[in-house]
């Protein structure tokens, strides 16, 4: 038998290994432990499934490429994640070569369901190595897993690894090294007689028609017959094949043979047989973690206390982002200020000094200052995900989700939208239902992403007094800034739900789709994985600061600095007659009803590129304005507080304006990258344009309301 992959792999090319496993099986931890920082994240061209690749040095000095595929329960293509993974493993993608070796990560504490994917992988005819994880968890549950027996049963190497303690990694690498010489595994299960003839017929046809190797043809024919209709988009298959598959399905249905049930039962039958020899369970483990998990679940998923806890957790997360994040933010701000002073004193006055100080330092420096808070946000998100709490939250929220036409799975994208709408919109690919997915995409940018945090932090830091709201004795639990921040996040969430409900009822009517979610056991998250994720996201943020934000800052500085009008008496007047001044004045009529002045208009227009640009834009504008003061201070907060409108003699920024600006930023679609991703995901301009229109309209309307109601209530 000729394997399609072994012929490609020769000694000169690095060994190409695909990591495959169920969600929550410890795949990411193992990937990080193996590759360290030698990894890069990208996308499969044309689709937005994340492609994560890393390198590892084998004991013989050779380098192997590791491809981390998305977490999967099955290779049956129900979602884009599964489709891509299946195509990669079968060597059907032009952008990724077929792997030489599959490293299947199997969770020992959940062996039965994990082995389902293994049985599908063994069908493919590519060498497979099994890494058995979570043996410590299985041990605590009173289960004994005999890895040697499992190895014999599967017919492929099985290595026990505890990635967090780096146990078994050496042995695993040594096995990987020999990976090329491994024999092709035999198919694990036996096709039951009632469907064997049909599988064989389609398999032969696939071999002839598409010159597929026998094993791939076998795997493909099973997949084709599993579906009741053509869910698999199979452009690579000829009409003859699809026709044969359809006819076979119809014939089976006429004979009342349930192909999917028969095939899946046969796989699980094989699994049960394997497990009997491999797993032995103490009937009554002394201290079963299952019981302690159940105790936590009783509180976390309680019909009343569960929701209370959910609310408390969310509030605590956002309050601590503010409390813990404030010190490093102040420290960074002070650093930026010092740098500004240093620049003022060390460079001769002129355009160049001004470009550096007002343009670059004022713009980029002020934005980078918010890095600690963004890091904290990602820290909490990955913490909630890795402990298993996120799935419980989805369980609690599903009823609400289904009421507004969303999927329980929509909850995960919406939650990760707190970090950034872009990965969130990509994550909607796990939602099979088209309408639910589209609604999720449309409302996801309403959740407050980390790019809004700088705007909130600037406004709250400058205008919301740090008054105590809740506390016991000397211990302050909640402050007014914290409450304001939480309110902004909840405003975004509420808006997302209301709009989803509206779309569900009007534009995208349909039934609520299915919901299947594993509730993984509670686990202590690996600090390394959490930190890796933080570094990854921080890197992306800094990359943006170094590119988009820098460019916008420089352009904005030039627009604010030229044309020069030295004859004008005040700085304010000079700024008003710059390009930026004209631009701001141009849109002022549109935003004046919201209580915004033309300088904020400049911020809003320029931050259409990305929300955090608002901070850098204000930084640039306000620094250009007093370029001739020699203090060199660039901290924006004081400047905003001190800004007085020369015509009215009143403060330009008031607490009410600050709140209005925040409300505007909660609701408005101010992000080019999101627009680009939505366009790619929905295959056209219709939905992104609609999204810009509805979000801007919503933002304008609500801000108008807040401003005028606030005014009537006597707020300034």
């Amino acid at each position, binding site marked *: 038998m000729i394997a399609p992959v072994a012929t490609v792999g020769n000694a000169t090319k690095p060994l190409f290994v695909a990591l495959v496993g169920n969600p929550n099986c410890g795949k990411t931890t193992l990937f990080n432990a193996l590759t360290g920082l030698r990894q890069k994240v990208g996308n499969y061209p044309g689709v937005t499934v994340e492609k994560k690749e890393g390198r590892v040095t084998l004991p013989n000095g050779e380098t192997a490429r590791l491809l981390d595929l998305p977490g999967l329960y099955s290779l049956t293509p129900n979602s884009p994640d599964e489709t891509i993974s299946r195509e990669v493993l079968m060597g059907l993608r032009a952008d990724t070569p077929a792997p030489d070796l599959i490293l299947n990560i199997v969770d020992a504490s959940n062996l039965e369901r994990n082995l389902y994917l293994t049985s599908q992988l063994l069908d493919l005819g590519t060498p497979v190595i099994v890494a058995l994880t979570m043996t410590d968890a299985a041990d605590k549950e009173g289960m004994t897993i005999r890895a040697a027996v499992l190895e014999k049963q599967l017919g492929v190497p099985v290595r026990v690894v505890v990635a967090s303690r780096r146990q078994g990694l050496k042995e695993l690498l040594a096995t990987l090294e020999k990976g090329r010489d491994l024999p092709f595994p035999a198919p694990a299960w036996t096709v039951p007689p009632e469907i064997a003839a049909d599988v064989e017929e389609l398999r032969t046809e696939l071999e002839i028609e598409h010159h597929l190797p026998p094993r791939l043809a076998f795997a493909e024919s099973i997949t084709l017959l599993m579906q009741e209709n053509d869910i698999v988009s199979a452009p690579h298959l000829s009409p003859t094949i699809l026709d044969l598959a359809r006819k076979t399905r119809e014939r089976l249905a006429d004979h009342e043979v349930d192909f999917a049930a028969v095939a899946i039962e046969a796989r699980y039958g094989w699994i049960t047989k394997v497990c009997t020899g491999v797993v032995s369970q103490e009937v009554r483990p002394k201290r079963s973690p299952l019981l302690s998990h159940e105790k936590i679940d009783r509180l976390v998923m309680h*019909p009343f206390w569960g929701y209370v806890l959910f609310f408390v957790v969310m509030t605590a997360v956002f309050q601590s982002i503010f409390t813990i994040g404030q010190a490093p933010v102040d420290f960074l701000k002070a650093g930026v200020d010092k740098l500004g002073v240093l620049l003022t004193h060390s460079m001769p006055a002129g355009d160049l000094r001004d470009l550096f100080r007002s343009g670059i330092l004022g713009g980029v420096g002020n934005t980078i200052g918010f890095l600690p808070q963004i890091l904290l946000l990602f820290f909490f998100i990955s913490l909630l995900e890795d402990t298993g709490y996120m799935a419980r939250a989805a369980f609690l929220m599903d009823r609400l989700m289904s009421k507004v036409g969303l999927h329980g799975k929509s909850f995960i994208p919406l939650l990760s939208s707190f970090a950034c709408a872009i990965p969130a919109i990509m994550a909607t690919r796990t939602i099979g239902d088209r309408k639910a997915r589209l609604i999720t995409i449309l409302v996801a940018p309403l959740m407050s992403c980390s790019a809004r945090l700088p705007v909130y932090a600037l406004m709250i830091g400058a205008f919301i007094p740090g008054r105590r709201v809740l506390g016991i004795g000397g211990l302050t639990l909640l402050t007014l800034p914290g409450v304001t921040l939480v309110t902004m996040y909840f405003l975004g969430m509420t808006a997302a739900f209301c709009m989803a409900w509206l779309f569900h009822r009007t534009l995208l009517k349909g039934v609520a789709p299915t919901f299947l979610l594993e509730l993984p056991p509670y686990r202590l998250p690996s600090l390394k994985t959490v930190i890796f994720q933080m570094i990854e996201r921080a890197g992306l943020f800094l990359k943006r600061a170094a590119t988009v934000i820098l460019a916008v800052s420089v352009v904005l500085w030039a627009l604010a600095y030229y044309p020069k009008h030295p004859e004008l008496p005040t700085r304010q007047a000079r700024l008003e007659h710059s390009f930026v001044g004209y631009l701001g004045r141009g849109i002022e009529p549109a935003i004046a009803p919201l209580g915004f002045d033309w300088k904020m208009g400049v911020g809003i227009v320029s931050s259409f590129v990305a929300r955090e640009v608002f901070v850098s834009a204000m930084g640039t504008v306000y620094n250009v304005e007093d370029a001739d003061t020699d203090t060199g201070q660039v901290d924006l907060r004081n400047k905003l507080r001190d800004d007085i409108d020369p015509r009215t003699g009143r403060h330009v920024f008031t607490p009410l304006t600050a709140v209005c600006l925040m409300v505007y930023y909660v609701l408005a679609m101010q992000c080019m990258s999101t627009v680009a991703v939505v366009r790619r995901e929905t295959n056209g301009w219709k939905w992104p344009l609609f999204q810009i229109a509805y979000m801007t309209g919503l933002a304008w309307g609500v801000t108008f309301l807040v401003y005028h109601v606030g005014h009537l209530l006597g707020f300034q």
Partner: protein
Amino acid sequence: MHPSDNRPHCKTRNLLDWLRGQKQRQRFAGSAQSALDASEQEHVPGESHGALYRAGLTLAELQPGECGTVRRLIGASQGRLRLLEMGLTPGVHIKMVRAAAFGGPLDILVRGYQLSLRRDEAASVWLDDEEPSK
């Protein structure tokens, strides 16, 4: 012991709970009746192995703490395929752990792990009307 055997997790329920379950079932009966085959009329539940086994009903009708054995899955292809692949195959033993408030999803124990699914999906999972044999 068989690894998918979750029976030790099942608890004995007292009569009061059982009566409450009966009431619940009557409420469910209306919606479930239409899908009910003549041969699959409800049977009287029996007591065995210290746990209460309900028979001839769907997963959606189980009360928290109750167990059952899957007989077959009906319904739309894609959802059914997913349920089967996640291990809800005929003959597998399951336990209802809890139900979310306001008619939210269910939390069940199957093949040694916790799975959450919506009530209408659970209603497509028919349970055996015979006591599972050891």
